[in-house]
């Protein structure tokens, strides 16, 4: 089972990286969260039933872990969002406008709550409200309401940042 698990996680590791990107503003935290998500996925793997999509189940465990993870106080989060070095585009795709957009997005997202971050991540990943509701375990109607609020909040935050 471990081999099968490793294979499927290696293929779908992008989901864990995305969750880590949205929830962590320091490299050390990111590594810890990646490992913690991995552990929780492994522990929950026997209970995974094929009736739901693997990615849906994986998003659920990863987001639940990110929201409930215990952060040590000694690491002070960077209040301004991601360190700018972390979000600089590599030279061959350098695009100042894209870089500015990413910077704004990161700063705005870093000010959302844990639940809001999970909803915006799934929205940015083009998930439908129905799937967002299944992953987060909240009603579709509440997801819509929450999404509406997050969009307004993000717009406001980005105007302030600009």
């Amino acid at each position, binding site marked *: 089972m471990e081999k099968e698990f490793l294979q499927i996680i290696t293929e779908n*590791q992008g989901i864990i990286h995305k969750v880590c990107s949205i929830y962590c503003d320091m490299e050390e935290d990111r590594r810890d969260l990646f490992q913690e998500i991995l552990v929780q996925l492994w522990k929950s793997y026997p209970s995974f039933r094929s009736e739901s999509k693997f990615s849906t189940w994986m998003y659920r465990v990863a987001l*639940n872990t990110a929201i409930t993870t215990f952060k040590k106080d000694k690491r002070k989060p960077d209040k301004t969002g991601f360190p700018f070095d972390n979000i600089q585009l590599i030279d061959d795709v350098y695009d100042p406008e894209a870089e500015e957009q990413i910077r704004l997005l990161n700063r705005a997202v870093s000010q959302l709550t844990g639940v809001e971050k999970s909803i915006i991540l799934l929205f940015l990943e083009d998930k439908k409200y129905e799937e967002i509701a299944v992953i987060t375990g909240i009603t579709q109607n509440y997801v819509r309401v929450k999404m*509406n609020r997050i969009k307004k909040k993000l717009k406001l935050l980005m105007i302030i940042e600009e």
Partner: protein
Amino acid sequence: MDIKDLKSAWNTYSSMELSKHQLGKETIGDLMKTRTKTVVDRIDRNIQIGILILLVYIAYVILDDVYLSKLFLKNPVEYPEWLIPMDVFSNLLIVSTYLIFVFRYFRVKRSFSSDNELHGLLSGIIQTLKTYRRMFYLAVIILMINLIVSFIAGICLGIKLKAEELGGGVSHLPMSKIFLICGIGLVILVPIVLLSFLLLRWGFNKLYGRYLIRLNETLLELEETDEPEVVE
């Protein structure tokens, strides 16, 4: 920047992040092997150790009451008769509180895992943390009940011995002396009880206070029952 731009910025960023952090199967396997216990796992282990220590302690307290003191003391202390029901009651209280605690712990432990709905998971972790805190309080309560009963027994015996030394009954002792003995005892006992509780509360809040607040806030956020807004 509108929502479309947001999505395109996210796509650029996430694909860039993936290419920067992508791991091979071996590295992921190594990460799994070197996994450390999560905070809930650690708390779980500590609660289990605590349950075992408390069980040993309770067994010792009861065994001491029923058997050991009679075995080792040549002249067993004669306690006032009214103290015996109090002693039995305190032992029953300790055992029943302990059993309720163990029952609640196993109920909480069974109730959640990471692939549950977030609400259930949050409630489970919060309950685990509160159970952990309760365990410390339980330990203090058990110790305090034991101390208080021993303290009362000690005072009664002390007063009796003093009265015998003075060649009369307890009724011959001046009330001021009896009050002084009780007063000194209380002056020692009350601060110990208060300090123990305060110290435990401080220690727990220092370790898990912020975490518990954050989990409670997230749970509240999920439980919001505002009137639905106009949806786009």
